[in-house]
């Protein structure tokens, strides 16, 4: 637990990002004509520098900063790298996206950078206060980003809905946090964990947790806090939607992992904690609503919005399974989700750049007009469905593996619901493919695809297809990231110890499952 002065050295990555924000804004003020390329380059440099800083100062064991407000541990580092990568890709995506960068590119990049800083904080929060602050930073930045297109009504409407919904949700979360603070007398996660374990008022704990969940649920757009998602995703500029669907969602999950892993005890006084059931309910609802609503969509961005809700459901499954298996599944799933989701949105941007709208009907015959874009879209969509050998399959495989490893009838029923949902999801992804490949185009002349878009598409499509070649180093890195957070389970893998731990956690899960 370092004091403020010493913490600064470990806080370097966040500082670099903040510095870049200022630099981008400052350079934009000085320059006579706004030059997108220069702002983007500066942002990219800042991001890479932050990444390098994170890697340099990486340590196997985790330690608290600023008197325990945030923690610098492998889990946080993993998420930081994920966010920096996401931001870098969004910068690449929005270079040619006229709707985002034609008027004020610098502000756009500055806003994304600030959001990334907020997300990095979210991932390392070990205190209710930092959780709230970082969540709010990310939310406020995304409100502005959502409304970035000045001249479009939808963007303004999206921003309004987002700001109101976000405000209410974070207000409710805050109220929940205040109750937790009341119970624990301190805002740090570990204190809350101890207090909840011993307080007899199990009902208030449940109420407080559900209220907090309103805030986290809104961030990852899980049912019942998802109502804002389709409208905002449709209204906001596509690069922003892409960023929202990956960045803040992953940050939300980071916070949830910390909150459910770190701050909530597995055992309440007397009865076992109802968290698996709570999360199970939310997960099942999110998947089912996300998939079913997507079946009837005709607008592509709205369809991908519901698809991202459904994917939040799958990750929630892993959270529900908990333990090292569950968290490993979450981390791996988010990596694969990053590539395929950004890829899908990029195709929309690239095609919009060439004049095609967002309605599925307008995409008819794309297979012939823009073969490479269509092939890329096919790869991303099949990966989102979870078909091997694409990356999405591996993500889902680990989620279901985590569930079945935990065992217990609740987990297995959730696995069955999840597996059937991923089968149903094929239908609406295939509708896009049907339009692209099986239906004849209205006007049959080839579609120009910007070389930058093509390059970025390749950059995203290759990992989606070939991730399994590189899978064991990735998984080894993820396992090492879990080391600090779940010390008991992740000691170096000797068979005997693992089995004993496994047995104990299974008992634990079984008792809690068979409530």
């Amino acid at each position, binding site marked *: 637990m370092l004091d403020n002065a010493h913490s600064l050295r470990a806080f370097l990555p966040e500082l670099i990002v903040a510095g870049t924000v200022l630099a981008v804004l400052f350079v934009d003020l000085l320059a006579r004509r706004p030059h997108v390329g220069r702002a983007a380059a500066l942002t990219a440099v800042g991001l890479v520098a932050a990444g390098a800083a994170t890697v340099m100062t990486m340590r196997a064991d985790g330690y608290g900063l600023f008197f325990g407000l945030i923690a610098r541990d492998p889990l946080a580092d993993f998420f930081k790298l994920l966010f920096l990568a996401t931001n870098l890709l969004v910068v690449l995506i929005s270079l040619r996206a006229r709707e985002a960068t034609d008027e004020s590119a610098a502000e756009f990049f500055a806003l994304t950078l600030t959001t990334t800083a907020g997300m990095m904080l979210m991932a390392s929060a070990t205190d209710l206060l930092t959780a709230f602050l970082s969540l709010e930073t990310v939310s406020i930045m995304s409100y502005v980003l959502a409304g970035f297109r000045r001249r479009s009504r939808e963007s303004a409407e999206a921003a*309004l*809905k987002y700001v*109101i*919904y976000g405000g*209410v*949700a974070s207000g*409710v979360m805050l109220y929940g946090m205040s109750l937790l603070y009341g119970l624990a007398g301190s805002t740090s996660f570990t204190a809350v964990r101890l207090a909840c374990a011993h307080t007899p008022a199990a*009902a208030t704990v*449940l*109420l407080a947790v*559900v*209220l907090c*969940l*309103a805030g986290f*649920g*809104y961030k990852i757009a899980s*049912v*019942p*806090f998802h*109502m*804002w998602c*389709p*409208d905002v995703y449709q209204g906001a500029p596509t690069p922003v939607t892409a960023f929202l669907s990956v960045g803040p969602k992953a940050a939300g999950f980071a916070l949830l992992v910390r909150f459910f892993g770190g701050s909530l005890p597995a055992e309440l006084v007397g009865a076992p904690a*109802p968290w698996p*059931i*709570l999360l199970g*309910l*939310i997960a099942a609802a999110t998947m089912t*609503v996300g998939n*079913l*609503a*997507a*079946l*009837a*969509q005709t607008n592509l961005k709205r369809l991908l919005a519901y698809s991202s809700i459904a994917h939040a459901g799958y990750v929630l499954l892993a959270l529900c399974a908990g333990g090292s298996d569950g968290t490993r599944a979450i981390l791996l799933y988010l990596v694969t989700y990053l590539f395929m989701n950004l890829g899908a949105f990029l195709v929309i941007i690239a095609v919009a750049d060439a004049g095609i709208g967002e309605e599925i009907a307008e995409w008819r015959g794309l297979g012939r007009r823009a073969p490479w874009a269509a092939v890329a879209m096919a790869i991303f969509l099949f990966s989102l469905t979870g078909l091997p050998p694409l990356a999405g399959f591996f993500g889902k495989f680990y989620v279901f593996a985590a569930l079945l490893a935990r065992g217990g009838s609740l987990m297995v029923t959730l696995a069955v619901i999840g597996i059937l949902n991923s089968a*149903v999801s094929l*239908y609406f992804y295939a509708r896009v493919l049907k339009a692209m490949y099986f239906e004849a185009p209205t006007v049959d002349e080839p579609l120009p695809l910007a070389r930058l878009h093509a390059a970025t598409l390749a950059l995203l499509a290759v990992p989606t297809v070939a991730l399994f070649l590189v899978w064991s180093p990735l998984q080894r890195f993820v396992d090492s990231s879990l080391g600090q957070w779940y010390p008991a389970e992740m000691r170096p893998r000797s068979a005997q110890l693992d089995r004993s731990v496994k047995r104990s956690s299974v008992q634990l899960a079984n008792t809690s499952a068979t*409530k």
Partner: protein
Amino acid sequence: MGWLRYIVLLPLVGAAINGIVGAPLERRFGRRVITVVAVGVMLAAAALAIAAAVTLAARPEHDRQIVDRLFTMISLGRVHVDFALALDPLSTIMILVITVVGALIHAYSAGYMADDPSYWRYFAYLNLFVFSMLLLVLGDSFLTLFIGWEGVGLCSYLLIGFWYREPANARAGMKAFIVNRVGDFGFLAGVALLFWGLAGSWSVIDHRYYADYPRLVPTLDLRLVHDQLAVAPFAQAFAAKTFLGAPLPLVVALLLFLGAAGKSAQLPLYVWLPDAMAGPTPVSALIHAATMVTAGVYLMVRLHFLFALSPAAMTVIATVGVATALFGAIVALFQYDLKRVLAYSTISQLGFMFLGAATGAWWPAMFHLVTHACFKACLFLGAGSVIHGTHTQDMREMGGLAPLMPRTRWSYLVGCWAIAGFPWAAGFYSKDEILARAYERSPLLWLAGAVAAMLTSFYMFRSYYLTFEGRAASEEQRHAVHESPRSMTWVLLALAAASIVVGPLVGLPELWSGREPLLARWLAPVTAGALTATPERRGLELALMFASLVVATVGWIAARLLYKDLRAREGALATLRSRLGGVPALVLDGFRVDALYDATFVRAFGATARTAAWFDVHVVDGVIAALGALARAAAFITAAIDHYLVDGAVNGVADLLLGAGRALRRVQTGRINNYVLGVAMGVVMLIVLTSWL
């Protein structure tokens, strides 16, 4: 003994040559090449068959066995099947009949089909048929036998529907194949049941006692099954087993008989044979008279030891046999189509053979099979040459052909003579032996048989008189018709001669020759075990022989009186009957004798014949047609169920999901207040559900 296979392979080679390169050959070198190949192959096969018979005869009685193993088809521990050919006295007779009669019929068809466009295709099918029939007869295991068995079914389908442009012919072919398939279902079920029974019984008796027995394993090999069932305790064990309550041998025997009935057109699976007349006449001669239809009888004689195990089955088969004989004869009475008369006659004669086999008279059944092959082939070919000349099959349009086609007439007459059972002709001896055996079994059987015999001679001579005697139906027919070419008629004469000579040569009864008939001695080793005790009652035999002679003559005289010069009276009778219905008609009708006949004998005959014919067309055929229609209806219903019910259910689930999707869409009203309300409701719902679960 590797040369046995060539008897079988020669027709296959012939079929292959004609089948594959037949058309170009015919175009370049003309039809002679096709005939040379087809008939040549048959002659070679006949020569080899005779050679085989001779070598077999030269061997001592107990060792009359030539086995030729080509290759192993299946070897899965117990299920070991070799593609092997085995020659023993029984199959020698069959291959002689097939190859010799077959060769003659091939020669005949060369003339008969001379002007047919797809000449090569006909001979390819014919050769293929002979190959399959030989395989059936020589096959050593149930499987090889079954390959031949279905092969002949296929060839009869192809040949019946030879002139497939005419849909009726094609439908007749299909009907034949499907009815055969019903029989084959019986055959397969019988074999499977036998195989299971054998396996079961082996595990029952203790092997120590029979340790030295060669191959103590259930087998599909015919001769091995025979050797195993010869072991008394094993046979009892086998007989003791039951299947769904019924004793196993009975069920196996009846199932195998169902197969035989399908192939040999016994009740109730006979319906395809009359329609099979749609094919060319030589085909009917070869397939539906001489060889294929006798396969059922061959099967029964081959497995006599199995049928002998269940007396109940034997009685059932006997009754079915005699019933078919009677039924065939009755229906044949009133047919006007020459070939259908012969078809029903075949069904009836086959009834006789099954009667013989079922009463334990194995060698008489084979004897009748051989004689029947000769005279029925002769009759069919005679009919063929008549049709070839008059271009019609309806007897009413014939008459007085005797002077115009002398050679056909005499051969046809000899054929009728033989089938009716007059002395010195083949039919008399074989039929008489069967009736004698039947009498021993039960007089009732003999009586039915005798009546059938009488009807046989009646309808045969009726067909003779209608076609050959009396005045010619029309003037221009008198001039147009001329005798068939010599290439066809010498075959007729040969067959006529055979149907006279074969009888006494092979089966002269002991009564006259003092020695056991040649065929009995020849078949003794094969059927040694079966019950063929023939009590020495010389008096009874003579009486029975005289009775069958009387029966034959009565039938002949009746036919002669009625149909000798029918033309003269036919017209008068018809007009009278049509104009007057009441009593004065009797007075006017001066021909008291005819009227008497007409009133009693003929009308009674006519009525039964007509009802039988009607019954046959509407009821039995109707039932089969109904079955077909029922099957198609069932198929249509199942297809509908499949489309609407099963597929519908699945699509129902899909629509349900899509509906839920649309419903969820409407929840997104777009108004912020609803969304925020969602947050509050969500929190409440979560708390309630979590604490409730």
